[in-house]
């Protein structure tokens, strides 16, 4: 990088390249947003699901679990837990926590009401029906 390639050329390529690729990113985002309704299961975003999402967030579930692969890696994937375990198991499991088994990982007791349990299950059902390009590879998540 000697005399021919100057600092101002490098700077211009930086600004030009950044603007170009950011605009490309915005264009792809625009198209993605148009495609979302085909895959994001938003037709099933009921008030119950929305309430469930809020419970999911305010109990910081993501601090231990992954949801569609994102989150912490301390506890099982929950994006497909609705298929893996079913609604009744999920509710019974949450009510039984913590197990208190010595040396085992513990999940806190969140004291959710029956309505709230139904809401979190509704949220997990909605999540499990998002088109995730066949991820995860199998039911274990």
């Amino acid at each position, binding site marked *: *990088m000697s005399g021919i*390639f*100057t*600092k101002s050329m*490098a*700077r211009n*390529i*930086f600004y030009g*390249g*950044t603007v170009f*690729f*950011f605009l*490309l*990113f915005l264009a*792809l985002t625009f*198209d*993605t947003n148009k*495609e*979302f309704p085909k*895959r*994001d299961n*938003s037709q099933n*975003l009921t008030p119950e699901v*929305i309430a469930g999402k809020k419970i999911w*967030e*305010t109990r*910081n*579930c*993501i*601090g*231990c679990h*992954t*949801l*569609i*692969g*994102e*989150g*912490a*890696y*301390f*506890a*099982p*994937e929950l994006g497909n837990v609705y298929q893996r375990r079913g609604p009744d198991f999920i509710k019974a499991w949450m009510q039984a926590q913590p197990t208190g*088994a*010595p*040396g*085992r*990982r*513990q999940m*806190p007791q969140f004291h959710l009401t029956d309505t709230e349990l139904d809401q979190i299950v509704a949220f997990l059902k909605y*999540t499990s029906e*998002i088109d*995730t*390009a066949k*991820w*995860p*590879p*199998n039911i*274990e*998540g």
Partner: protein
Amino acid sequence: MQYKSQAVAKPYFIAAIGLFIGQIIFGLIMGMQYVVGDFLFPEIPFNVARMVHTNLLIVWLLFGFMGAAYYMVPEESETELYSPKLAIALFWVFLAAGALTILGYLFVPYATLAQMTGNDLLATMGREFLEQPLPTKLGIVVVALAFLFNITMTVLKGRKTAISTVLLLGLWGLAIFFLFSFYNPHNLVKDKYYWWWVVHLWVEGVWELILGALLAFVLIKVTGVDREVIEKWLYVIITLTLVTGIIGTGHHYYWIGAPDYWQWWGSIFSALEPIPFFAMTVFAFNMVNRRRREHPNKAAVLWALGTGVMAFLGAGVWGFLHTLAPVNYYTHGSQITAAHGHMAFYGAYVMVVLTLISYAMPILRGRAANSNKAQVFEMWSFWLMTVAMVFITLFLTAAGILQVWLQRVSDTPMSFMATQDQVALFYWMREWAGVMFFIGLVVYVISFFIKGETRAVTQ
């Protein structure tokens, strides 16, 4: 110190190191909970420890970036800081907000904390890394804007260099993309899509501009190589960063409900993301080899070279390892991700902040460099922490490969928890490597208290 107002950087650096210690302690707690599941339960559940661990990391790196800016910008602009008083006031505001948030995580149940802090008005909490209560998020915006005002005014009244321009671009980008943390749609797919506009466009975008500017600044100072050369390299590196990294966001969009074409866009562009990191390594070594002076601060040179190498390994190599869509299909959300996250954050951002602290702190304390003895301690801490991080990464990678095989590839896939039991050996080894990291950190802190012969600043 050339400008009196650079002194405001000092409390920022001290706070950064203090919070770093806290971050590592909570990391050790989590590492323990991976193998002794009920460790400290119910006092500190894993999710709380993790919030503290990751949020402390973000906050202390922000302290480091701000301190670095306050130190560098007066020297780059050849003028005093616009308002040192504002800088000191913001320091206390940010420290108090950070401390209150962490105490809130530790002592108030998260759902109660959400209720107390207005999450019902605008729900932003409970998303990974963005767990902060609404007032903290607003506080971050206010502090960031006031800080940017201070720094921008300083740059505007003084000399404009490529380094200060790139630093400002990075810092403004940091503030702007953080605004997406206030956008939390009910639609989970959209929530995830724009969540990455904070997380990815920070760490694989604008933060790399900050990283480049800090590294370039220290390299000019310790090597004496011509500014024109170094700034040209800087532009080339950040061009490569953004050209690959912006579309590279797509490697997070493979499985979250976005269109399938992201598997192509994401794979191709993020496969190129190691290139800027490789360029950074070549850059650092090249400049040190062509040095025109022997700077007495050998430790700072070591940190600068280490940043190049470790950022390339952690962000570049370990990122590439699982970035191609057909590979990521199996590794997504496994311990492979954790391995990459640890080495990338340490190699790129922790090390560059420590590079700048290593260079600037002695000068802030009235000497060109620390005594030989203090530098030997600091260099020991460099090797202890860096080697420990290599081991942490290798053990997590081993755990991840096994996990992926047992849980996702095998013909008879195991459940998540059964798999975790199978890989516990590697979690134990990771925990011991974590202890080694902590010892390195203790040595690092001690190095600040080692006396000995020093030379006064000559500039």
